[in-house]
């Protein structure tokens, strides 16, 4: 631990970054016309952007779209730059949305990406203004949105944003060639209606594998290699009165109608007539697979997509085209709307369209399907079966009902064999994660201070809200932890503690958190976990990493930034030193002057460090240089089987071993071979005065002559004392 003065701000660029390589993926981005792409959807979409002739790409990482940014960052020098395409990893989603401002005046196609709904929320100020001003060049936003198993954020729909800002929203049918086509069509749609377009992908779809036949990449007509000849000004694009009144009229009377015309003309939605009949299903493109599967399993379809029921597949879920809906509904007695997410925006609109058309068709949706949650195969099959038994009548009702009953019974019977309750297995910190020890320190510190109000943030650090730490009273958004405790400290009469990653700090915490707390003289302690990356989304670079996403060496300093704001109480601790962290936190909590105190818990993300270490080890090994490898161990006889160490750690490599000693109460602690010797076990054992069973063993391969000699001599002496 050291206190930093202004002059002690580390100026050197740390040896961080550039440990991951997406060279293989980048190679697929240059496939030419007629060549076949094999890979994951998110990479296919990235390729589609280049085929569509984008002039610029930006975004903020978040599952499942991080990969788009990762690959383009790696492909910058070899693919993007020669084509004249700009690329940046924006500082936040708001920055990414604002980047699309380039398409307002200029015929530049641009794409940005982020995780929805959270990223869309961050971006919404720029997005609303962009949608109002309208675009000249096609503007596309690729978002990842998910329900259920794949989701790690609040369950809300981007659809609502699309509705209020008049943004066309594509939810494509998950077939790779179709998704690539729709991505390219999105730019045409955007240019036709002068609105930015959103393409939404669920996580399983983003990581779906498949293939498609490529087209050539199109260099943008204007870009870094061919600058646009003039800067433009047009008051009509400024969001002030009276333009805004005109924008609103335009959206309703020109832009959305133009979008509908484009959707029809380019057949973006798909009508599968089936074998006719008076029942039909209207579905979001993204639910096509589960609907088809459910129909097959209910005996109403086959494996290559031939169904009895007519289907209207909405690849564009906003705006809907009333004519398409009307003519689908017109000839039907009953229609089911399959729409994932809450509220049921499509269903409401379909009902309204049908009612306006005077249709007598019975429309069902969230009355037979669940209101909330992920639409898995089982869920959709259940809903379809319920709906069909209800509306089909006669033989079909009986057939479907019987089929579903048989399927359910077989599954329920098998499920009833499940022998025992299974242990929950939520995600957690990785082996050796540098974020874990600060929570060990906080857990121990609360034995002295009583329970503290700890506000949590977004990032790997959110895992501390789970066992064994169970720590973090609120999570209000990325970089929001400090601000979210603003009214708590005074109310509890003691300083609050906010935890934030360096990613969160640069994203939003710097203004919403630090500047706000400093300006309003909050009595608060901010812990910044500086691990050097946006780790939760895959070790993307942040401003303090040392390099930007395109690899240029540039580093912004967290301390210098805070000092520039006038925050003077800043301490940096080695995150693996639990006792030093506890001592620093004690000082921070009891600092008499009040105001904002910042503790920077400093150690590099272990995943990134491991990649580099692995490379360095291979080099050292090849060169025959001495090489140290360390791991922790537990003396089984010393371990009491109390597992306090695990309640302070939760490290995957600190695990259990069945006891050999009949006097033990249960399994003893055991350090598995994947231990990276981060040091937490030893440090926590000392800080908490746990049992002394831990040891660290360090083996040196390729020892020097001196090292060998010392080892041999020590061995002799110790054998005399009875060590052998």
């Amino acid at each position: 631990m050291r206190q930093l003065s202004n002059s002690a701000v580390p100026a050197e660029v740390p040896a961080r970054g550039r440990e991951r390589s997406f060279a293989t993926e980048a190679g697929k981005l240059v496939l030419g016309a007629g060549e076949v792409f094999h890979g994951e959807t998110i990479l296919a979409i990235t390729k589609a952007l280049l085929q569509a002739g984008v002039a610029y790409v930006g975004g903020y990482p978040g599952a499942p779209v991080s990969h788009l940014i990762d690959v383009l960052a790696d492909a910058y020098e070899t693919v993007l730059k020669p084509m004249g395409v700009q690329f940046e990893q924006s500082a936040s989603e708001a920055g990414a949305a604002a980047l699309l401002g380039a398409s307002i005046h200029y015929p530049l196609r641009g794409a940005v990406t982020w995780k929805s709904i959270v990223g869309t929320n961050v971006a919404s100020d720029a997005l609303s203004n962009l949608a109002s001003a309208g675009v000249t060049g096609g503007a596309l936003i690729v978002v990842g949105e998910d329900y259920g198993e794949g989701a790690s954020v609040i369950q809300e729909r981007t659809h609502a944003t699309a509705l209020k800002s008049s943004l066309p929203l594509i939810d494509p049918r998950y077939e790779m060639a179709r998704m690539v086509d729709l991505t390219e069509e999105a730019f045409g749609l955007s240019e036709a209606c002068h609105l930015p377009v959103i393409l939404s992908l669920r996580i399983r779809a983003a990581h779906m594998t498949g293939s498609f036949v490529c087209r050539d990449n199109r260099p943008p007509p204007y870009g870094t290699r061919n600058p646009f000849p003039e800067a433009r000004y047009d008051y009509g694009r400024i969001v002030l009165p009276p333009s805004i009144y005109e924008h609103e009229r335009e959206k309703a009377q020109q832009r959305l109608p133009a979008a509908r015309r484009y959707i029809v003309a380019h057949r973006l939605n798909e009508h599968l007539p089936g074998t006719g009949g008076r029942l039909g299903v209207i579905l979001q493109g993204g639910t096509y697979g589960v609907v088809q599967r459910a129909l097959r399993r209910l005996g109403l379809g086959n494996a290559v997509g031939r169904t009895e029921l007519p289907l209207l597949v909405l690849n564009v879920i906003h705006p809907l085209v009333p004519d398409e809906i009307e003519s689908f509904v017109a000839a039907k007695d009953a229609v089911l709307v399959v729409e994932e997410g809450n509220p049921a925006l499509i269903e409401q609109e379909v009902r309204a369209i049908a009612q306006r058309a005077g249709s007598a068709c019975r429309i069902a949706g969230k009355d037979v399907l669940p209101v909330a949650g992920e639409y898995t195969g089982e869920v959709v099959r259940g809903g379809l079966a319920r709906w069909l038994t209800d509306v089909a009548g006669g033989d079909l009702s009986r057939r479907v009902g019987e089929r579903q009953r048989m399927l359910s019974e077989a599954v329920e019977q098998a499920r009833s064999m499940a022998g025992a309750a299974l242990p929950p297995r939520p995600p957690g910190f990785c082996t050796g994660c540098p974020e874990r020890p600060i929570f060990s320190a906080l857990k121990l510190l609360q034995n002295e201070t009583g329970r503290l109000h700890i506000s949590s943030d977004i990032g790997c650090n959110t895992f501390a809200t789970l066992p064994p730490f169970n720590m973090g009273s609120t999570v209000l958004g990325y970089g929001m932890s400090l601000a979210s405790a603003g009214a708590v400290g005074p109310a509890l009469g003691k300083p609050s503690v906010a935890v934030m990653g360096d990613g969160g700090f640069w994203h939003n915490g710097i203004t919403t958190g630090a500047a706000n707390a400093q300006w309003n003289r909050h009595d608060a302690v901010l812990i910044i976990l500086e691990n050097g990356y946006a780790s939760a989304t895959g070790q993307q670079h942040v401003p303090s990493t040392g390099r930007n996403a395109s690899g240029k060496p540039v580093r912004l300093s967290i301390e210098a930034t805070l000092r520039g704001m006038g925050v003077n109480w800043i301490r940096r601790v080695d995150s693996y030193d639990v006792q030093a962290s506890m001592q620093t936190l004690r000082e921070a909590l009891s600092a008499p002057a009040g105001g904002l105190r910042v503790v920077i818990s400093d150690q590099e993300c272990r995943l990134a460090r491991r990649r580099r270490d692995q490379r360095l080890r291979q080099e050292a090994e090849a060169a025959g240089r001495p090489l140290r490898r360390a791991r922790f161990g537990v003396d089984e006889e010393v371990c009491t089987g109390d597992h306090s160490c695990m309640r302070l750690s939760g490290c995957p490599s600190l695990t259990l071993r069945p006891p050999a000693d009949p006097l033990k109460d249960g399994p003893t602690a055991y350090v598995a071979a994947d231990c990276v010797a981060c040091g937490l076990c030893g440090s926590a054992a000392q800080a908490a005065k746990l049992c002394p069973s831990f040891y660290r063993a360090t083996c040196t391969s390729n020892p020097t002559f001196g090292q060998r000699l010392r080892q041999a001599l020590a061995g002799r002496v110790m054998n005399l004392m009875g060590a052998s």
Partner: protein
Amino acid sequence: MNSDRPICVLLAAVGGQGGGVLGDWLVEAARIAGYPAQATSIPGVAQRTGATTYYFELYPDREPPAAPVFTLFPDPGDVDLVAALEPTEAGRALERGFVTQGTTVITATDRIYSTAEKTVAGDGRTAIGAILDGIQQAAGRVIRFGAWPGQSLNAVLLGAVAGSAVLPLAPDDFRAAIRARGVAVRDNLAGFEQGLQLARRPGPTVTTDPATRCEPVPPILEPALAMAKLPEPLRPLVGHALARLLDYQDAAYAARYLRRLAPVVEAAVPAGDAEHRLVATVARRLAAWMSYEDVMRVAQLKTRPGRLARIRTEVGAGAGEPVEVVEFLKPGREELLALVPRALRGWLPGTGRLEAGMPLRIRTSSPSGYAALKVLAWLRRVRPHSPVFALEQAAIDAWLGAVVTAAGRSYSLACATAELSVWVRGYGQVRARGRSALETRFADWARRVESDPEGLEAEVRASIEAARNDPDAGCSTAAQPA
């Protein structure tokens, strides 16, 4: 099952086990063999070190009449193969309805314990036998495999997938996929071959804990053990305890163990201890308590002959490769005082500073560090003169007295009381608090046993429960007398 359907494969794993690579191999093998196929996964932070699945579908016709419609979700009752890298994750697949009569299950049987299992004081492990039995009953076919030292589990599992022949892919397609992916090709091919053999000739894989092992009775204590009145089945355990206490202190101390056990044995029979549960519990817990770990004991264990050799094996040190071993000790004030003869204790200045303990990092791989621990270990000869020793012995006797008293009134209360010693654990202040809490509880014991044994038993059980559920409470209020 309808033949006009894709073959559906669910891979279940714990984040970090290599399930993603396994999925890649399947996709690549299908591509090589020319079958339409699709895979998906939920990577990223939502699954890091947690339960995760990968899903794969293959259409078993190289030239389908039209593009097959694949889906991204397994559907209960429609999964042909569940391949799990961890047995409770196979269990999770069953719980979610993905294992039915038409399903082949291939599962590793080696556990990766979850945080929930690890943080319990004592044994919080899930019983794996019942889970595997359930899978056996529900599935059409089960292939289990244990650990393959030196092989990557996902490659072994891929081999077993190939061997199970659920997919219309030849072993060579998989081998080509491993080569095409280009990661650790030689090792993965070796693992693949192991798995392939295993699936073709599946043998039963037994997964039980290695049995605990009782030390033989030291000869010097044989006569005493022979004379002791004990239930026959417990003699090996008691012999083990005697060996432990002889190693811990001396023969006299071991003999004291037998003397302490005698009244419990005597009280147990009339109390109804036909199965010897009470005596077994006390015999085990008494030996553990009497060999409580203090600085001397830890030093003794850490200087055992052969320990360094064991650690060398553990880190895989080759001949001539130096290994440095560092111990992390932090004796507290009470433990340090225990090392100082009583007469000198008054002379020590300001021991209050030691309240927080004295962090020591000792290199037992160096002669000086090893010698220092040897000296500490030797000090066990003066252990009986330390005040802590006296406190521990008094607490032990109070506990044993409480057990015997309880046995005279209620057998189940006696059994519960025997478990109460769980509170005396850890080191330093935590241990001292636990000890004094027990003494407080036993203060009014005899009267409570007489007047309200049921109420008392409920309190005792709640206290044991609290010890297990809130183990860091040190001394929970539940341990205090009502």
